[in-house]
C-alpha cells in the first residue's frame, strides 16, 4: 500500500446515498499508476517512490526520460509524481490502483487551481470594495496601503492586486463516496482544485485519523 495516487479530474455531478440524500461529488479517474523508481537512503539520502500515470508515445519521450523509463521497463508515462514515506515492501513495476481507498475514507486532493490572471483585490483577497452608486467614486479599489512619513514604505505582504490562481492547492479531508475499481473511478464529496481534465494527486488524509 502507498500513500497516494495520481488521477484526472473528470468533473462534478451528484449521486444519491442510501437514505436518498443528494450528495455533490467530484469524479476522478484515479490510476492505475506504476512504480517507476524507488529511492533509498544509501542511494538518494531519503526514502520515496516515483509513480507514473497515463501512458505516453515512445516517439514523444526525450532520450533522457527514455533512459529513466527503461530502467523500470513498464513503458513511458505522461505524468510523474514522487511519494514520500511509502511502504518499504513496494517494488519497482508494481501497480497502484484506486482500490487503495474505500468508501468512507477521508482523502486530501492536491491540484493546480484555475488560473485567473491579473486580479483585483476584491476577487483575490475578498476586499469589500466601495459603493457602486449614489455618487461613490470608490468602487473596486484597494484603498490605503499604509501610512505616509512613517514607515515611508509599504509593509511586506501587503494584500494587493496581482496574479491569482494557477498554483498548487490542496483540499483537505474530502470523504470518499464511492470507489469503482473496474473503471478506476473515485467519487469524493465536494469540489477539488483545478479544471476538468486537470491532474490531481490523491492521498489519505494527513490531518484526520482514518
Amino acid at each position, binding site marked *: 500500500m502507498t500513500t497516494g495516487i495520481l488521477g484526472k479530474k473528470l*468533473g462534478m455531478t451528484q449521486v444519491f446515498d442510501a*437514505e436518498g440524500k443528494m450528495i455533490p461529488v467530484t469524479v476522478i479517474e484515479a490510476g492505475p499508476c506504476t512504480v517507476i523508481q524507488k529511492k533509498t537512503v544509501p542511494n538518494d539520502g531519503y526514502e520515496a517512490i516515483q509513480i507514473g500515470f497515463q501512458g505516453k508515445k515512445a516517439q514523444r519521450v526525450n532520450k533522457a526520460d527514455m533512459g529513466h523509463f527503461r530502467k523500470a521497463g513498464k513503458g513511458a508515462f505522461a505524468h510523474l509524481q514522487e511519494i514520500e514515506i511509502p511502504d518499504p515492501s513496494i517494488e519497482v513495476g508494481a501497480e497502484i490502483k484506486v482500490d487503495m481507498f474505500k468508501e468512507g475514507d477521508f482523502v486530501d486532493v492536491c491540484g493546480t487551481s484555475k488560473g485567473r490572471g491579473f486580479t483585483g483585490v476584491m476577487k483575490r483577497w475578498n476586499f469589500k470594495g466601495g459603493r457602486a452608486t449614489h455618487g461613490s467614486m470608490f468602487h473596486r479599489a484597494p484603498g490605503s496601503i499604509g501610512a505616509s512619513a512613517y514607515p515611508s514604505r509599504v509593509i511586506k505582504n501587503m494584500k494587493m492586486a496581482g496574479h491569482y490562481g494557477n498554483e498548487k492547492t490542496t483540499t483537505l479531508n474530502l470523504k470518499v463516496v464511492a470507489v469503482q475499481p473496474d473503471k478506476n473511478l473515485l467519487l469524493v464529496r465536494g469540489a477539488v482544485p483545478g479544471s476538468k481534465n486537470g491532474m490531481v494527486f490523491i492521498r489519505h488524509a494527513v490531518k484526520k485519523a482514518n
Partner: protein
Amino acid sequence: MNLLQELELSNLRTDFPAFNAGDTVRVYSRIKEGDKERTQYFDGIVIGFHRNGISSTFKVRKESYGVGVERTYPMHSPLLEKIEVKKRGDVRRAKLFFLREVSGKKARIKEKKDWISKKSLKVPSQGAATQTLEPAAPEATAE
C-alpha cells in the same frame, strides 16, 4: 461519451411515465419521520422542468386552501416511489410560472385532445386499419 456521462446515465431513473409541463400529476414520495417511513402523495400541475441529467428537477404546483403550494422534486431521486399522470394539459410554453399570478378561470389549463387515438377509432370503418395494423400476417400465411 466519457466516464462521467456513463456514470450519470447508470444512475438515471427510467421507470416513470413521460409527462410534460401542464400535466396534472400525483407524485408519491417516501418520507422518513423518526424511524418510521411512509409514503406521501402530492397532487398538482407540473409547471416546469429543469433538465440537467441526473440533477434534473420538476416543479409541481397546487392551490391548497387558497394558498399556492409548490414543490420541487429531483427527477432521479430514489425517494420518489411513483408518478401518476392524471390529466394531460394542452399548453404552449415550457414554464407555466404565469399560474402564480392568475387564479380562478384564468388558472385553468385546457386538456390535451388525444388526436391519434381518435383517428385510430375512425379507421376501422374505412377498412384501412387491417392493412396498417397487420402487415406481417398475410405474408406468413403465403409462405
